[in-house]
């Protein structure tokens, strides 16, 4: 299973699961929910933080937080 930080630019991914942690609730409240589509827009230098497109919004996460989001890729 890939995590969100491993999405390539241009790929579309579907959120599979949010790995349980202290941040799960926060991530879910921001809209990172299983079944939602997301894509990767930008990586800052040193590949961290990463900006994701989720629905109509852009949200930046650190690599460590992105690793809490398990995704499956769409063809």
């Amino acid at each position, binding site marked *: 299973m890939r995590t969100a930080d491993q999405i390539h630019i241009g790929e579309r991914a579907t959120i599979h699961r949010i790995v349980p942690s202290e941040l799960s609730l926060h991530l879910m*409240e921001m*809209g990172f929910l299983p079944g939602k589509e997301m894509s990767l827009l930008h990586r800052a230098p040193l590949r961290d933080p990463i900006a994701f497109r989720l629905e109509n919004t852009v*949200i930046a*996460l650190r690599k460590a937080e992105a690793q809490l989001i398990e995704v499956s890729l769409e063809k």
Partner: protein
Amino acid sequence: MPEVLTPPRQSTFTVALVGNPNVGKTTIFNRLTGLRQKVGNYPGVTVDKRFATIKAGEHEATIIDLPGTYSIYPNSEDEVIVHRVLNGLDSSNKPDFVLAVVDMSNMERGLFLVTQIMDMGLPLAIILNMSDTAEEQGVKVKSHALYQSLGVPVLQTNARSNQGLEGILEVLSKKMFEKPEGFLASTDLLPASLSEKIQQRFDLDNQYQAYQLVRFYENEPTLSEEHRNWLQTEIEAAKYNLQATQLEETQYRYRAIQGVLDKAVTKTDLGRKRLTDKLDKIFLHKIGGYAIFLTIMLVIFQAVFAWSAMPMDLIDGFFASMSARAAGLLPPGVLTDLITEGIIPGIGGIVIFIPQIALLFAFLGILEDTGYMSRVVFLMDRIMRPFGLNGKSVVPLISGIACAIPGIMATRNIGNWKDRLITIMVTPLMSCSARLPVYVILIGIAIPESYIGPFNLQAVALLGMYLLGIVAVLFTSWILKLILHFKEKSYLVVEMPMYRLPRWKDVLITMYSKSKTFVLEAGKVILAISIVLWVLASYGPSSAREEAIAKVESPAAGATDEQLTTYENQIASAELESSYIGIMGHFIEPAIRPLGYDWKIGIALITSFAAREVFVSTMATLYSVGADVEDELTIQEKLNSEVNPETGNKVFNLATAFSLIVFYAFAMQCMSTLAVVYRETKGWKWPVIQTVYMTALAYVSAWVVYQILS
């Protein structure tokens, strides 16, 4: 009998304006209230409470603009306010109604917050804002369908272009708020027996409120120890797993919202690329992005100085001539002296700040308003991390260039306590605008106005002071990171809103209200200190005074005018030296002599502890006392001509001026900042540590500078 006319009964009520960040909530607030808004404090925290009372039909409505939040479960200090106000825990601000603002192009997340408020049982109305962006993205909302499924009035607006504002006013004047049925069945959230017990004991309306209490009771200061213990026992007895329930609630809620949106919202993919995405390719570019950021900062910096120079000169000159004119008009006496030597220079010392502060606040407002600030957070996060800071620390630090107080208050949206604390501790090291007049005057004295190539040497020195501040920030936070240990993990979750053109009216309102607050707050302190200073400088223990005056040789009969003037000056300086403040200055002189300061500078250091900008007015007062006001010398000229009576050298030579500049760069000389740090950290520990480390840093650095240069 004549009819008795009774005025129509007016009612007053309170409306809380809530919504996600960046949904145009503040624009709506500004449009509704204009300049009537006031800034106050919530009890116990320094978060600015913005509110205004407006006339809505026959009623008076007080509107409170709450900080933007994604959920009523707080992740930061900002969001705690929303939770407290909505739950009625803050009794002075309990809202009667809620106006919930939702971004029409991002309904899902907006409704997440709205439905939570519905479940709490508060009467509300929904404003779907930013209809223009929604349209651009092919989003259409059937308000009526939404009304039917939620049971709450819904109106569409586009606050930026003033569309739909009459609708909001109508909602207010007719009190068209509705108390909806709960959105989620709370039975799923809390075991019925536990919920009943809690509702009974705390007299709550519904299950969701009981559930809220379970979520918050541990950190709720208004609950008694007894209540807290009772809750703990009951929750444990019910074997209730709060964390799992919360995650479930979030998923339920989003699922239920999706059901509503399927009926009420149509989305057509217009296949258009958002302008924001194109702009982000430029602004977030790995190299270009940083170049743009640096350029923007330099342009702001340059503009603040270039544009404020003229008004500042005018203000300076104006107050100097006002003193002279007042001295000419008023009969000579103690009161006149107080006005011309104490009050007028004191007020001038405050007013001269206004151009720079207003410009800085305006530029910061634009950066925030356009959405660029969150891009800066993205660009800077990784760079700030090794220093124990966070991408979000950049916003407080940049604000710190204007003033540490709004900067420290801006740390509230850093969710992580360690990152936030370090940011609070180092923000006062940024060169704030209060240091500016000190720098400008001292640099003007120490460095000749010459050019190296196209660069003005004085401007380069000033830029250097700002860089010095940044270096001090990074160094200190790095040290703090090594010393402080907290369990909490650092994280960053930040939304990058769409780019928008700045709303000039909003920028102006922000600039006006922030400058006003700053000037009034700082002004009170400065004015009071100016008066106290003047009194201390004009009076002293009478015996010491007479002795000092007697020591001055009186000129022989038939002395020239020149000799008489020298005599008068000697008397004046003897009087100052034997005044109360002179005695205080002499008392600390041994401690500051290694830094190159005399007792007069010592006085300025003492008074600057309240606020560093007082340095200028202190100097103005000290060197005006006894001086001929009609000379209309500006402060800088006065200081530059000051000569050490013993050595005959200038008091403000290169070494002393630089030593002083460095001292002011690092020392904690601002009561207001200390007060804010006290409130934000909820105790005296951190402000005390901050004062000690900053003063030590200032003393040692100033000593090193003086020893090297002299």
